[in-house]
């Protein structure tokens, strides 16, 4: 997720020979460990920072600032941190913040749907741009889907 290179070349074509399953398991484990390391590098610092905020007046301050807007989408004010991290950094960062805060299953589901429509905006928009598409359209679609899903789910759930 965090590599911004285009990875199509790494998709292996099977030549129709016998499948070397050991090789597959080793490669899969390696890429699993690599992804785990990528998310560790992000989740750990985020967890420490948000824990620190939680035990100072800062989280309450942030929460109060964002409360009016966040209440429209059924989320407490401090969840603004999660949405900002998810959109500016990536889903791993958002997960680090969710794990630190105390949120209900409903709130976590709303956040999950919103963030799955719109996340890692800098990185993914750069990737989408390489295909030659108008990024403004893409950004508008993603942010509107996220906002609309938040509004609707708050009413439905």
């Amino acid at each position, binding site marked *: 997720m965090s590599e911004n290179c285009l990875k199509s070349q790494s998709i292996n074509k099977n030549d129709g020979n016998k499948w070397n399953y050991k090789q597959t398991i080793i490669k899969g*484990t390696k890429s699993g460990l690599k992804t785990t390391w990528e998310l560790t590098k992000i989740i750990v610092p985020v967890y420490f920072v948000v824990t620190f905020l939680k035990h100072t007046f800062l989280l309450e301050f942030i929460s109060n600032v964002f409360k009016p807007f966040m209440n429209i989408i059924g989320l407490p004010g401090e969840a603004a941190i999660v949405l900002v991290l998810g959109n500016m950094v990536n889903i791993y960062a958002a*997960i680090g913040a969710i794990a630190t805060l105390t949120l209900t299953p409903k709130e976590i589901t709303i956040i999950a749907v919103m963030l799955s429509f719109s996340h890692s905006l800098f990185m993914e928009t750069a990737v989408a741009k390489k295909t030659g598409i108008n990024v403004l359209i893409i950004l508008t679609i993603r942010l509107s889907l996220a906002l609309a899903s938040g509004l609707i789910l708050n009413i439905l759930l």
Partner: protein
Amino acid sequence: MNIIDILKEGAMGSTSSVLNMAKIIIPLMIVIQVLKDLDILSKLARKMKPLSKFLGISEDSTFPLIIGLILGLSYGAGVIIDSAKEDHLSKKDLYLVIIFLVACHSVFEDTLLFVAIGANGWFLLSVRLIVALVLTSITARYIDKILSKKRIHL
């Protein structure tokens, strides 16, 4: 609450979160490697051809669509760029596939990560898929008009 307690809470909490994620990510990556090495995704793409009519995309576009849906946006974009070079994708297909993929990509990884922290996975997955399908098929109906008007510089 003093600084030692905060550090302790941070260390313990972040370690357990990372371990939780690792339990999901490592098996998932092995499964994905199996899909890649056995070339299952291109077989799946061939099976998906009837769906291309509903989405309004060409049959060749199902391959980048499946790749992006399962492996992620960067893989999908890589395949799109390759196919665009070989002239398999029209501008219309390009837009429709990307619109589908920005709404819904790397479905396994994203869904499972959110499930690990307590979200409803089936709900999340269905909302994403349905929204992506509906959005793409609606856009397909109007995209010719939009592209010919060229009011938006595409």
